[in-house]
């Protein structure tokens, strides 16, 4: 039993690693093209690919919400803003970005140096530490007596309760055996998924940064209007 589980875990890991490899490769190639291509619109579209790939990485890491936010904000808004900017300033086809040789070598040197130092530090510090995907959905559950008739069918089926067995109470041990999508339908269950945790963190622990960011956005909005508006 244990070995089977382990095997499954390994398989799972392999699938994830393959996915990671594909995403990372796409991402790096696109990023490289983005910083080297001469065409501004192409660069923006490569950036789209990089951002989409990083959204995929977020989902791979179990942060769906950040991934969706990434798509919504970056691809839906920021890139469109970029494309607007490009088209409003220099919407011409073909290459228009001639980079001096000197600058290019300088940039490459700095970038390489940076990467080498960071890579050294990272490998030195974190070595081969694994990300363990623990229990992503901590669940608050308060057992309460409930009429079996009112229980949703999947809950009854999973726990072998018949519809006419009167008042029942589902213990925490029973509850723990259920699948997540069934769990959230048990009366008295509070499923605290990733979203709920993020919301809790933002609106209690990090309420001040949150308010600061909202003020910042407002300031940026006004600032952008003031700067860009014609007299």
């Amino acid at each position, binding site marked *: 039993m244990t070995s089977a589980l382990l095997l499954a875990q390994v398989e799972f890991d392999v699938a994830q690693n393959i996915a990671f490899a594909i995403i990372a490769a796409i991402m790096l190639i696109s990023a490289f093209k983005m910083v080297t291509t001469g065409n501004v619109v192409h660069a923006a579209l490569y950036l789209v690919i990089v951002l989409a790939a990083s959204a995929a990485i977020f989902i791979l890491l179990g942060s769906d919400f950040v991934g969706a936010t990434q798509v919504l904000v970056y691809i839906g808004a920021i890139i469109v803003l970029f494309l607007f900017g490009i088209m409003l300033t220099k919407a011409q086809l073909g290459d228009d970005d001639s980079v001096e040789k000197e600058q290019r070598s300088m940039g490459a040197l*700095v970038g390489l140096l940076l990467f080498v*130092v960071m890579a050294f530090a990272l490998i030195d510090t974190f070595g081969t530490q694994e990300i363990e995907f623990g229990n992503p959905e901590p669940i608050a559950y308060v057992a309460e007596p409930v009429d079996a008739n009112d229980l949703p069918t999947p809950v009854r089926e999973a726990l072998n309760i018949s519809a006419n067995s009167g008042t029942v109470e589902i213990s925490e041990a029973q509850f723990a055996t259920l699948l997540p999508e069934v769990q959230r339908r048990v009366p008295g269950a509070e499923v605290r998924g990733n979203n709920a945790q993020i919301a809790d963190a933002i609106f209690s622990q990090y309420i001040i940064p949150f308010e600061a960011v909202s003020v910042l956005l407002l300031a940026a909005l006004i600032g952008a209007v003031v700067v860009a508006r014609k007299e």
Partner: protein
Amino acid sequence: MYSVLAVEAFEASFTTEGNWFLKNVWLIPLLPAVSFFLILGFGKKMPKGGAEIGIAAIGAAFLLAIFANVAWIDHRDNFDGETQSAITGIVDSHSEDENALGDNTDANALGATIDVTDETGATETVDVELTAFVEAGEGGEESHPAIAVVTSQEWLVNGGIPFLVGTLLDGPSVMMLFVVTMISLLVHIYSTDYVAGDSRFTHYFAFLSLFSSSMLIFVLSRSTLQALVAWELVGVCSFVLIGHWWEEKPNSDAAMKAFLTNRVGDVGLLIGIIILFFSAGGTFDIIRINELALAGEISQTALTWAAISLTAAVMSKSGQFILHTWLPDAMAGPTPVSALIHAATLVTAGVFLVGRLYPVFFIGYGIDGSSINGLAIIGSITVVGAGLVAFVQDDIKKVLAYSTVSQLGYMVLALGVGAWTAAFFHLFTHAFFKAGLFLGSGSVAHAVHSFDMKKDMGGLRKYMPTTHKTFLICSVALAGVFPTAGFWSKDEILVGTGGLGVGSGSANGSYHLMLIMGLVGAALTGAYMTRAIYLTFYGEFRGHGEPHESGPRILWPLRILSVFALFGGLVNLPPGFITGSLEPWQERFFHFVEPAAAYFPGIGHAVPSYWLAVIASVIGLMGPAVAYWYYFIKVDGLAKSTGQKLTELPDGLVSNNKLAASGHAMLKNKYYLDHLYNDVIVAAVKGPIAKLAYRFNQHFLDEIVDTAGRTSVKTGQTIYSVIDQGLIEGTVNGSGKLSNRGGGILRKIQTGKIQQYAALLFAAATVLAGIFIVFV
């Protein structure tokens, strides 16, 4: 998680037993706050311009405050019943065990109170306790049940420190609730007539509501941070209301002055709060700070510095010398606002702050057993200084303003000498007669359209009998004539100084100087009020037109206030003064207002002395007697005989005696403090100091540079002719070329291209990081 904790704390904070009115006092400040927004939003569209919303809100708040007071009295009585032995222990220590207190006060007083906490904790009948929240935060420290009703709400958590808001209801705050809402209600009613037809009528009422609300929040503050917020809100509202008629320059200047002067004190408050926060181990909780201060957990030095900083705040807010100058100028606002500011809200905030954080001052200044300390000095100087200035003012409101400063001096003095109850009692009584006086002066000004007593008033008693009567009653109360409210409170303060061995009781020290200053102040008070009454109501009318009595909405508040001014003092009769069925009325005020809890120091209470009362009354009546002789007999007689409209004797002391003249001029110019601020300090920075710096720069520094330049020129010439020309020209040329080339290379770095700079920055940071990683 934090949210769960917050919910628990929320629930815990409301499981406190107690009367509904005591637990829900937050409604009282909420009502005027809501009314502020309602008036701003819909006031203009209402038939009465929003005034009805304000009156309804403050009226409801007043009712709630009365209920809260009744509930509080009930609460105290019950508390006493259940913990009778413990309380009598305290009372004993207050009244009988004088010597023990005098000798090693801290230990004894604290021991007594801590006994209370233990017993009540054991019986589990305590209706109030510090919230579970605090305990959760402090990790299992024992809680000190207090006799205050506390509600807490976690505002936010930052850096692991919970910021609490809530209400702290005990004697002083419940008393202030009553005073603030009552005066505010009367001022609201009065204002509907007084500012009727004003272009910013709605705006005025909106801010009146906010003003009341912020003061109520202040008196109910649970934490120093909350108090700071309310304190600032009060300041902002006073700014708006003082500058209500901002179209005229003096008014907006006065508002600005009030605001800026208060800023000085606000810095003090902020520093004080920070000192207390850190020295109390990271808490803003007022009760906790007080407890720690009393238990000796906070170092004496920290408390002293905190007390000094807070004293600055009190000086600015409560108009103590030398930061009082804004207060008379603040008369530029509408008169009802002045009444509100001076009687119930703004200026009493400072006094209340001291009373609220009294252990900080008590320990910090070492109030018990000493004979001099910061608060007492400032208070006594203010009492006399402001009383003298009040004597030479021509503007009736300015007389009252300086009178307020003087009376606030009494309160601060009382706090400084350890007569806490006396200070709050005086605050209580003063609120009524000072509000009555201000509203009365407003009524007069309403009739004659001026505040100048010498030019536009006189003989008004014939035209405005009701105003005259109420003004007279309030003046008598202010002067402290037996048996008006002012007599009882002033007398208690004087007794509290414990000076001269006359009925010293168990006062906290021997403040002889303060007693003398207080007596002088009492005489002065009577004198300047006599002068003001003569100039306003007696003699011949000197203004224009036909003055007429004000309407009922102005007169009824005056009548109510004068009743309170007459009888308000009866709530705190000294022990032994009456007997029989009325005996429970003795020291009612003391009993209900002074906190009897672990967060309040065990202060001694002086036993009142008939001798002192008689002496004080005699000295206090000497002032008015002299003034009466001068104005009512000499001036009035001269005026009648010559038929002139005189306000002073043409050949009086001031015109004959040089010393008196200079003293008069000094008072007229308010001790030149405004000159000091405007002409000396500001001008010094602008003028001489700047010039001096310029001179220094021009003559001294430039001289050095010039000399150095000349010397080097000469040396250079010498070197040029002797060494250079012959010897090292080649070398120099070589080095010149070298530096030229070097400059050329370095110049390339200075391209003005952002990205090159960025590249250098990144490269340097990376190299540094690399070095850090490899070698550290």
